[in-house]
C-alpha cells in the first residue's frame, strides 16, 4: 500500500509518496491560482513519474484547500499543516522537539512531545513580517534574487539595522539605505538579520527546545538560517530532505499511521 501527502502553500505545492516506511518520491511545483488544482497537479505528476494509479494510494491533504480535496474525494482526510510539519520532522529525526517553518505567508514555531504529537504552536499574526513574502519584497527592492539575498550575509562587513516591523516600511528603509549608497551586501544582510529577529520574537512565545530544525522555503535562505541560529543559540538539525516537503511528508505519515494496518 502507498501513502501520499499533499501540501499547498501560498507559493509552492508539494507531494510525497511513502511505501514500506520510506519515501519513494516527492515533487515540488509553483502553485496554480486554485489550491485544489495545485494539489491534484503535483500529486498527479508524482504518481505518473512513479507509475502508480491514484486508486492505489491513500492520500491525506494539508495546507490551502485541504478540506476541499477531501470533499472532492481526492484525499481521504485532512490534517493541519502545523501537525504535519511536526510529524514529518519527528519521523525524519525523533530527537526533534521544535520545528520552525517559514513559508510564503506563514511563519510557525511548532513544539512536539517525545511521541511526535503537537504540544504547542504559535503562528505569525495578521502580518507579513517574518514570512517569505517579507524577503521577496526586500529582494525585489534590492534587485536581487532570493538566493543572492541569502548569500549576502556572508559577504557583508557591517549589516544595517532594519527597524520597521511592517514589510512595506522595511522596504522604505531598504530604499533609504540604497539612496545613501550603503553597500548592497550590508543592506541585504540587515534584511536577513531583521527576518531572523522577527522569527525569534515569535519563537519566544512558545519557547525553543532542542533539537530544532528549520523547514519551509525560507530554510533554503542560508543567510536567514545563519542569523537565526546565532540569535537562538542553536544549530539547526538537517533533516536530510528538501525542507519544503516536510509538511506533505507529515500528511503521508498520518495516512500511513491511520490506514497502514489495513
Amino acid at each position, binding site marked *: 500500500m502507498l501513502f501520499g501527502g499533499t501540501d499547498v502553500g501560498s507559493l509552492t505545492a508539494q507531494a510525497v509518496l511513502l511505501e514500506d516506511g520510506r519515501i519513494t518520491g516527492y515533487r515540488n511545483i509553483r502553485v496554480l491560482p486554485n489550491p485544489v488544482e495545485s494539489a491534484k497537479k503535483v500529486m498527479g505528476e508524482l504518481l505518473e513519474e512513479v507509475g502508480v494509479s491514484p486508486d492505489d494510494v491513500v492520500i491525506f491533504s494539508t495546507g490551502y484547500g485541504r*478540506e476541499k480535496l477531501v470533499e472532492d474525494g481526492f484525499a481521504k482526510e485532512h*490534517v493541519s499543516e502545523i501537525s504535519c510539519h511536526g510529524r514529518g520532522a519527528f519521523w525524519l529525526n525523533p530527537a526533534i522537539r521544535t520545528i520552525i517553518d517559514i513559508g510564503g505567508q506563514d511563519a510557525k514555531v511548532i513544539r512536539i512531545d517525545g511521541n511526535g504529537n503537537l504540544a504547542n504552536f504559535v*503562528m505569525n499574526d495578521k502580518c507579513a513580517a517574518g514570512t517569505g513574502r517579507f524577503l521577496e519584497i526586500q529582494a525585489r527592492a534590492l534587485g536581487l534574487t532570493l538566493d543572492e539575498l541569502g548569500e549576502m550575509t556572508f559577504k557583508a562587513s557591517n549589516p544595517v539595522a532594519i527597524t520597521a516591523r511592517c514589510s512595506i516600511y522595511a522596504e522604505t528603509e531598504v530604499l533609504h539605505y540604497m539612496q545613501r549608497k550603503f553597500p548592497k551586501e550590508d543592506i541585504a544582510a540587515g534584511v536577513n538579520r531583521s527576518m531572523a529577529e522577527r522569527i525569534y520574537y515569535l519563537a519566544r512565545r512558545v519557547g525553543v527546545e532542542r533539537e530544532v530544525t528549520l523547514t519551509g522555503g525560507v530554510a533554503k535562505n542560508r543567510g536567514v538560517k545563519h542569523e537565526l541560529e546565532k540569535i537562538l543559540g542553536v544549530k539547526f538539525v538537517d533533516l536530510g530532505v528538501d525542507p519544503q516537503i516536510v509538511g506533505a511528508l507529515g500528511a503521508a505519515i498520518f495516512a500511513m499511521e491511520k490506514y497502514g494496518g489495513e
Partner: protein
Amino acid sequence: MSLSKIHEIASTLENEYVEKWRSEGNAVVGHACIAMPKEVAEAVRILPFRLRGAGNADTSTADSYLSRYNCSLCRSCLELVLNGSYDFLDGLVRVRGCDHWMGTFDEVQHAKNPEFMHYFKVPHLVNGDTLEFFSNEIKRLKEAFENRFGVEITEDEIVRYAKVQDEINEKMREFYRLRFKKPRFYGSDAIAVVVARESLPSEVFLQLLESAMAEKKKVDFRAKVLLAGSPLDEIELIRKIEEMGALIVAETTCFGGGSFWNMAEYDGSEIYDFLAAKYLNNLKICARMFGEYAFRKNFIKSMAVEAEVDGVILQHNKFCDLFGIENAKLRMDLEKDGIPVLVLEKEYASTADIGRIKTRVQAFLERLKR
C-alpha cells in the same frame, strides 16, 4: 421558536421591537460600553441600544475618517452610523472605552453631529474616590437624559429596573450553565442571546430568553473552549469555529459572559452608589481597567474550571491595543497553569480571513487531541 427570533434580532439593527418602542413615542439611545447603567435609562423608557458591527465588513466610508490602523470593529460601527443604519437612535452616550472608540465617537460627532451626545466619564480605576466620582457621573447621566428628553427620573423607578436587571442577570447565568457540563446550546446561540439583550427592552428580552431556554439542543463537538479577549459580536465567526468542532461553552468577553456574570444584585443601599459599584466592579473584565489583570485572569480561570473546558481562545482585532497586549501575557500565564491557549488575531467580520483562522483552530484541536 424564541431562539430563532433571538437570532433574527441579533442579525438586524433596528428590530421589530425597537420599531414598536419608537412608534409608542419612546426614545432609543446608543452606547458602546457595558458600563452604561441600563436601569437609569429604562426608568424613563429610554432604550439603551448597544452599538455593534452586526457582521458588517464594508468600511469604505469609515476608512476616510478613521484609518486602516484603527480597530476594524470600530470602523465597522462608524460605517453603519455614516450609512444611516443607526439613524433610529435618538442620541448617543460615549465612554472612553479605548482610543479607537474615542476616535469613532469623535468622527460620529464630526460627520453626523447628533443632537444628543453625552460624554459619560467612566474611571479606569476602582477605589473609594473613583466610586464616589462614578456615582456622581451616573447622576449627571440621569440629568442629561432628563434635560434632553424632558422627563423626570425617580430613584424608585431606577430601583424597580435594577431589580429587573437582577432577574435577567440571574436568568442569564442559568442559561450559561446549560452550556457548561453537558452543553445544550451552541456558542453562536449564546452570543445571539447577549446581542439581543443589548438590543431589546428588558421585559421583551426576558420573555424571549425564558422560552429560548426551553429549546435545548443536541450539540456536537470535539472540544469545549472558552472565548476571551476583545468585544466580539460575530455570530458567523463563532458558527464557523464551532463547525470545526471547537464548541464555545463560555465567554468572558463583553458581548458574552463578561457583560453580566459578575454583576452585583441590588442590596437596598443608596441607588447611585450601588450602581457605581455594580457597573465599575463588573467593568474589571475589560483590559481598559488599570490594575485588574489578576481579576481578569482569575475570571477566565474560574469560568474555565466551571465550564470544564479543554482550552481557551484569546482573540482580538488587529490594532486592538488593550487586548492585543493583554493576550500575550494571558497566554503565558494560562499555559503555565496547564490551560492550552490559542491566540487569534483577526479583522472584524472578514470572510476572506476565515481560512487562516480555520488552520489555527484545526491545529489547536489537534493539539488538544480532539
